[in-house]
């Protein structure tokens, strides 16, 4: 379990996160939603240790991440996997090499073992016959799936996905969402997904946290989201005319 306690983050004098408290549960797909610029990515990067928090604490199964030294952080990072918004695959490596990379850096597996594990992960995300291709030679959806394969290669306890379906078509988005949910349940991972896609919220959101202007405004489940009573959340959820129609139908 990941606990975020009173986390604040400032860049220069600008406060990006303000007193955020949240709990992210294992085996659940925890979603952080909010408008662009609300602070979702900064929160995720603080949790992952890519940004240092200005104040507050982040606990990994009770272990304070902010109090850890660099060596301890490095150890705990081996338990994390992250899927970045753009995939962040290494351009100079093939798909197979990208997935083998964390195995080569942090395990003592032989080349054949690493290759076997990489193929296993790629198969899990339905990437077949693209092992020798470079990231630039595959589609955006495939890149995201390879990024997921790389993230799960070391059997992480924590998985972070920053807008995993941004720039993807609706069908591929659903494939990615379902893949994340399945992997979360299969490996009992604590997964945090940043998104502003309402389809994802409804499809995979076990626990949802709404962030607005750097503050946590609401938390609940996908079934509660329509009756939150929080104006800012309603404005976000029912931003499109389609969603407004759905609300009108529900009210009838």
């Amino acid at each position, binding site marked *: 379990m990941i606990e975020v306690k009173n986390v604040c983050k400032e860049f220069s004098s600008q406060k990006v996160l303000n007193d955020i408290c949240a709990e992210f549960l294992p085996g659940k797909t925890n979603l952080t939603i909010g408008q662009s610029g609300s602070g979702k990515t900064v929160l995720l*990067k603080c949790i*992952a*240790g*890519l940004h240092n928090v200005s104040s507050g604490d982040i606990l990994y199964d009770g272990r304070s991440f902010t109090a850890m030294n660099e060596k301890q*952080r*490095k*150890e705990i*990072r*081996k338990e*994390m996997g*992250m899927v*970045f*918004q*753009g995939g*962040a*695959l*290494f*351009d100079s490596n093939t798909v197979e090499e990208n997935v083998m*990379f*964390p195995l*080569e*850096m*942090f395990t003592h597996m032989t080349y054949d073992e690493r290759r076997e594990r990489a193929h296993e992960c790629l198969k899990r995300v339905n990437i077949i016959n693209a092992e020798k291709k470079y990231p630039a030679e595959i589609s955006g959806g495939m890149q995201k799936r390879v990024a997921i394969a790389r993230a799960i290669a070391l059997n992480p306890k924590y998985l972070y996905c920053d807008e995993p379906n941004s720039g993807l078509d609706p069908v591929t988005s659903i494939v990615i969402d379902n893949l994340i949910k399945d992997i979360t349940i299969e490996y009992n991972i604590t997964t945090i997904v940043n998104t502003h896609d309402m389809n994802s919220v409804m499809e995979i959101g076990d626990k949802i946290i709404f962030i607005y202007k750097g503050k946590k405004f609401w938390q609940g489940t996908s079934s509660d989201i329509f009756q939150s009573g929080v104006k800012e959340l309603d404005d976000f959820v029912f931003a499109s005319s389609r969603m407004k129609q759905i609300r009108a139908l529900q009210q009838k």
Partner: protein
Amino acid sequence: MLNIFYHTGRYFLLLKRVFSRPERGRVFLRQTVRETINMGISSIGIVLIISMFMGAVCAIQMAYNLQNPIIPRYLIGLGTRETLLLEFSSTIVALILAGKVGSNIASELGTMRVTEQIDALEMMGVNSACYLILPKITAFVFFIPVLTIFSMAIGLLGGYVASFGTVGLTPHDYVVGITSFFKPFYVTYSLIKSLFFAFIIASVSSYHGYYAGGGALEVGKASTHAVVHSSIIVLLFNLILTKLLL
């Protein structure tokens, strides 16, 4: 002024991270070999072409300026050799490589930064500075003496080729000139300088690329800054090293 202190401090902090123990020796070696090919071997062509022409032009200009009956003609070859050994093959080649290799390093690392590849490495627990920059510095410092020696040899050959058909210079005079009063220390001096220059080019360019922010525009700026700053620092160190060594 404060900006200079800020960047200098950040540069040395980055170097501290760069010169730490690599996570995997095998991976470091493989990366170093890859960088040697990318930065060193791929630069041989441009170094040879430029050295050939510069050696030839140097010899022709020497011959033009030393058209005097009281000056022995072998001095043309000797002057060409000293110019190539002392300054051209180390400093001018370093400035050319600052353009080629420096911009390459800065744009590669800058692109990795803006596409979050560096974040991905950090996320995995890899020391990204050491993983990405140390092989570049090692490869370039290791390979630059080879480029310098090639440049010297081809520069002298260029002068020899130019000696055919240049008024006031014969191939025989040129060969006598380049083989007279040879001081081996000049080669050592040139190689020492080139090692410093290689370190400056690779590390300064890496610094600019590693801390590039924003998007493509910023990567372009980082690339330009890498070339400009490493060229200036190379020239500054050229002066310092010349004062110290000669």
